[in-house]
């Protein structure tokens, strides 16, 4: 049974959800608070509050609480007047639904989001394993940080919910992008450890630089392991994108593997989108 968390839901919305989800999921309800734990839930449904800014903040906090896991956040409301869903989507909502929308359509959308992510194919593990190994090795070597690989899922969503991302464009035998994304606090901690300095002395520029160098090292050390294979790629100079909910476009029609790594209670994610020129991996 899939566990779904309803947050700030009124009795009217609870009734609608019971009808939409039926026996496909087990609903649990909680009021919103700052220390929400979302581990183990397959979906979160938040009822929209009256104030846009407050709801946006709640979505952002829920997205942080997801720790890069693929948990859809569905925002549900009872408004009849048109409003833009853009601020909520940018903050991290997956879907905005109205209780006045046709229930068959809502049911289909919710069921779509409840389909579990597929497991990687053996062929995909062939190129993912070196990335996992090298990511852990780099942080251990450069910052003496123990990193645990947590999980992988595939997503075609282009939105990344970290605060700062390092991007490497790939060319050569294989095209694609590699993106490492962090929440600010972990990025700061990693850079401070690499430099052997106090976190309070780490400025934004150094964090950008550290994240950029990290994706550079992941790319460089991994490409060596693909020599003579279809996944071998060339690298260029990395770029950095900053800001919550930023968007990054990957190659079309290509699987994006999201690898989640754990450092203590924090997580960061590595997106691997790679397509050998003579060999396409389909979703």
């Amino acid at each position, binding site marked *: 049974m899939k566990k779904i968390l309803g947050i700030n839901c009124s009795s009217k919305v609870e009734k609608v959800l019971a009808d939409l989800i039926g026996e496909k999921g087990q609903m649990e309800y909680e009021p919103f608070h700052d220390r929400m734990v979302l581990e183990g839930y397959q979906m979160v449904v938040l009822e929209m509050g009256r104030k846009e800014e407050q709801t946006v903040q709640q979505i952002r906090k829920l997205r942080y609480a997801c720790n890069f896991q693929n948990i859809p956040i569905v925002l549900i409301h009872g408004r009849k007047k048109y409003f833009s869903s853009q601020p909520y989507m940018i903050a991290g909502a997956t879907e905005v639904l109205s209780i006045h929308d046709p229930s068959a359509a809502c049911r289909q959308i919710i069921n779509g989001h409840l389909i579990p992510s597929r497991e990687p194919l053996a062929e995909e593990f062939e190129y993912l394993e070196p990335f996992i190994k090298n990511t852990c*090795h*780099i942080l251990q*070597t*450069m910052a003496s940080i123990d990193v645990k690989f947590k999980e992988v899922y595939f997503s075609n969503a282009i939105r990344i919910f970290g605060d700062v991302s390092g991007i490497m464009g790939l060319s050569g035998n294989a095209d694609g992008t590699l993106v490492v994304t962090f929440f600010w606090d972990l990025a700061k901690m990693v*850079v401070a450890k*690499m*430099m*052997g300095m106090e976190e309070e002395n780490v400025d934004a*520029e*150094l964090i950008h*630089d*550290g994240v*950029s*160098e990290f994706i*550079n*090292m992941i*790319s*460089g*050390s991994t*490409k*060596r392991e693909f*020599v003579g294979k279809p996944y071998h790629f060339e*690298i*260029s*100079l990395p770029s950095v994108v900053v800001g919550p909910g930023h968007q990054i476009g990957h190659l079309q029609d290509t699987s994006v593997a999201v690898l989640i790594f754990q450092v203590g209670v924090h997580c960061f994610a590595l997106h691997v989108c790679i397509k050998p020129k003579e060999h396409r991996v389909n979703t």
Partner: protein
Amino acid sequence: MMKLIVADDSRLIRGIIDKAVASIGFKAIQADNGKEALSLLNANKKDVSLVLLDWNMPFLNGIDVLKNMRSDERLKDIPVLMISTESEDNRIKEALNIGAQGYLTKPFTPEKLIEAIELILNSSKSQKTTS
């Protein structure tokens, strides 16, 4: 204090190197691209004992800086340690063939860096003694 030039577009890497080489008595003159590295090298050629070069840098990459150095009478004898994420054998061979004295792949520990620097400096000293 002995001097070396470190050319890397990453401030983080330059900072790590700066700290590591200070522990063995070196002052690191920093450049964030290859072009700047060459002008700093020309300005400090008499005092510089070693150059540490990243491969991928804006304006002029490390391998082009190395080629420039080896074709310049005034700079050709200054030892070079390449420090790069480029870790394939053919890249390492290319850099060594052009005239780098050593090659260190990222990621590295400060201990590995110091070991690589000392190896180059010792070998450079013994070559001077022999000649």
